[in-house]
């Protein structure tokens, strides 16, 4: 069986994937104040994973990333709905968000918003969705 020698691809992938993942997390975190957000962050994470799958093969990546991406979909939706439903505790309408400023040891003063939690739900869902679709179709014989 013909096996291509893709050393360059694999080497660069191990580097680029981390950069992509980092960029994805940046997009997610920065979304509230600059371009980005859960949606594009999720897609970017997915593209990092896809890159890994492409260069190392499905079996190998499954070993290092033992995640069932389908379960991410309900988890993400739960986070999003839970964030929305959390507002009931404070007796305000569904999906009312709030924000505040906190001083943390390393980061200094930062702004934390409940909208960010919602965005994380979006992020997880989009990641799960994209990976499920791509892996399902790619695995199809």
């Amino acid at each position: 069986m013909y096996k291509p020698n893709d050393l360059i691809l694999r080497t660069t992938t191990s580097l680029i994937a981390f950069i992509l993942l980092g960029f994805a997390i940046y997009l997610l975190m920065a979304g509230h104040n600059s371009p980005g957000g859960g949606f594009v962050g999720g897609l970017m994470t997915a593209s990092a994973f896809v890159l890994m799958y492409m260069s190392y093969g499905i079996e190998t990546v499954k070993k290092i990333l033992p995640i069932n991406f389908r379960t991410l979909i309900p988890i993400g939706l739960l986070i999003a709905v839970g964030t929305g439903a959390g507002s009931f505790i404070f007796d305000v309408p569904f999906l009312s968000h709030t924000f505040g400023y906190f001083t943390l040891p390393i980061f200094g003063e930062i702004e934390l918003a409940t909208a960010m939690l919602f965005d994380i739900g979006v992020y997880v869902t989009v990641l799960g969705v994209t990976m499920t679709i791509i892996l399902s179709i790619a695995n199809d014989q």
Partner: protein
Amino acid sequence: MIFTVLIPLLLACFVPLISKIKDKIHTGIFVFFIPLAIFLYYIQFVGSDFTTVNQTVDWIPALGINFDFYLDGLSLLFVLLISGIGALVVLYSIYYLGKGERLGHFYVYLLMFMSAMLGVVLSDNIFVLYTFWELTSISSFLLIGYWHFNERSRYGALKSMLITVFGGLSMFGAFILLSVITGTTSIQSMIEQKDIILNSTYLPFILVLLLLGAFTKSAQFPFHIWLPDAMEAPTPVSAYLHSATMVKAGLFLVARFSPIFSGYEWFFIIVSIVGIVTLCWGSYMAVRQTDLKAILAFSTISQLGMIMAMLGFGTEIAVYAAVFHILNHATFKGSLFMVAGIVDHETGTRDIRKLGGLLNFMPMTATLALFGTFSMAGVPLPFFNGFYSKELFFDSSIDLTAGISGFADFLVQVIPYLAVFGSIFTFVYSMYFFFGVFGGKKQFNLLPKKPHEAPIGMLISPIVLVLGVIIIGLFPNLVNGTFLAHAADAIKGAVTADQHIKFWHGWDSPAFMMSLIVVGIGTILTFTRKKWAGVYRFLPGKLSLFKFYDIVLDKLNSVSNGVTKQYMTGSLRLYVAIILGTTLTLTFITMGATDGFTIQFNNLSDVRIIDLSVVLIMIVAAVGTIFARHNVAIILIAGVVGYGVAVLFVIYRAPDLALTQLVIETVSVVLFLLCFYHMPKLRKRDETKRSKAVNIVISVGFGALMTIIGISAHSSKWFDSIANYFIETSYKLGGGHNIVNVILVDMRGFDTLFEITVLGIAALAIFSLIKLKKNKEAD
């Protein structure tokens, strides 16, 4: 009163229980007492001191639909006919239907019908009337199809259902119009407001729709075609429904509403013409039939036509004659049907060509038939009640005064001749019926059974009816003032003293001369029947309405089938073309009709080189997808359009959109490539020039439409944008500087929540599609 209407329906619920023990006692014996009790209850109202009775029971008061029952002379006549003949028919059916039949079904349907019919004649509320009216159609349908294993029965049942329900729905339309115009649902209040109805612009519609209902139910020309086919029903049903009661519902309707319309000339014209034509055509066609019940069916049609014509004349004497004939016809036609049933039962056939010479074998039946047929023919002897009403009919036909319009004038001249013509044939078929069955040669070798006299139980009912014929014949004034005068009064209003029915009108009476002409010519025609029977080859010949109905029904099926096949081809291309074409046409028409297109140049930005060049590239790529011949090429070229959009987002300062668009475009291109890898190569479609042209027109048109809508939408900004609110409050309320993101997760987080749900469902759907397919392959 309401109990008499509903009791048959309520007791019908218990009939199936009773019919379980039919081995010991015939179910009909229980049922027999129901109409008898109703008859006895209503007989108390007969008398010269009759006053109308009202009863109201709420049903749907909010809509003005209540069980308003109203008993006047007309309803009393019908109620007595329904319950009286109903009792006799049940008695007859006990002997006619063996215990092997499904008696439970039969009596449930019959009681249902009885209830419905009583409801029709007693209701004052038009919507309740309509409800019962349709119930008669349904129960009649069930009764005609009683022997449902018989193909002809099913055909007849369907035919009667289609025609009578068609009429019923028309009548419903008239009722709605009436109640809208007058603001009431009560017939009596409508009669009080008849000026409003007569001056309404809807009057022609009301009249035509109402009469459609009456004509279809009463088997008037050209809707008579269902009645001969309804003869597939058991004979008690034919005797009850198709001679005495249901077919008279149309007459009842016309009579009930004639106080409103009697001043309207078209009412006279339509009803008289239809009635007279039905009389002539029905009696003419009856002579042609060979089946006993078919003869009686056409005879019923013609007699109903005669009554209808008299109701159309609307003069005092005509109305009086009409109610008199309703009574007479019920007596002699009911007995004749029973006679036909006896002959069928005892000889095994109804074919008049095989019958003959039964006089000595069935003397009782023959006597009964003699009275029935001679009364039907109007033979001038004082113990045939048919003669009296026929005389009154002739009287009323020459008594008509000229109408206003020339046509009505002409009609008045013609009617007496047509009346005589129809009566001649009535005489001929009556004689044909009697002598065909009981006279002539014996030919018992043709009969399936050896004929013998019927059991006495079967003869009781026709005997009672024939006694009615004779008693009314001998003492016509017995039913006159106590009974018929009230009925005529209800139709015509203020009938002066009761009409005195005379047997002897004097030699110089034109009606008597007409009767003599009828008998004379009728006798000649009867004896020479074989010689002139050839005319039936020319008329109806090919003009048969029965064939016409079959063709219409057949065409209705095949044409609608064809039409559906034309557009439901299963081709998705065609459906899309239809959807887009319709959208296109409707939108362009709307736009043209409402002058919706606007274009303004004052609010436009400058066009830059970079915008132009990006758009140009996209246009080239878009056009390229049309002409590309390979599917991977198409995907890649389409990708160019997607990236072009992303660039446009960048240019128009939408960084979030640009980012998302870029990534999504990439992902979808990858997915497309994954999928199309497995797909077969594109084939060149064999398209005709025409379909190609249609496709081009639709696609270009749709593009143009969207462009025009875009321009119009841009040129007409009716409200200030709410964007300023978001710009101001994005940080204050949402705590973020990225307005797009704040809108997505905070201001309108609800949308986002369900968008990610959509994504999740899509992913799970794709996953399950692929997995399920695999499982299926494994099986």
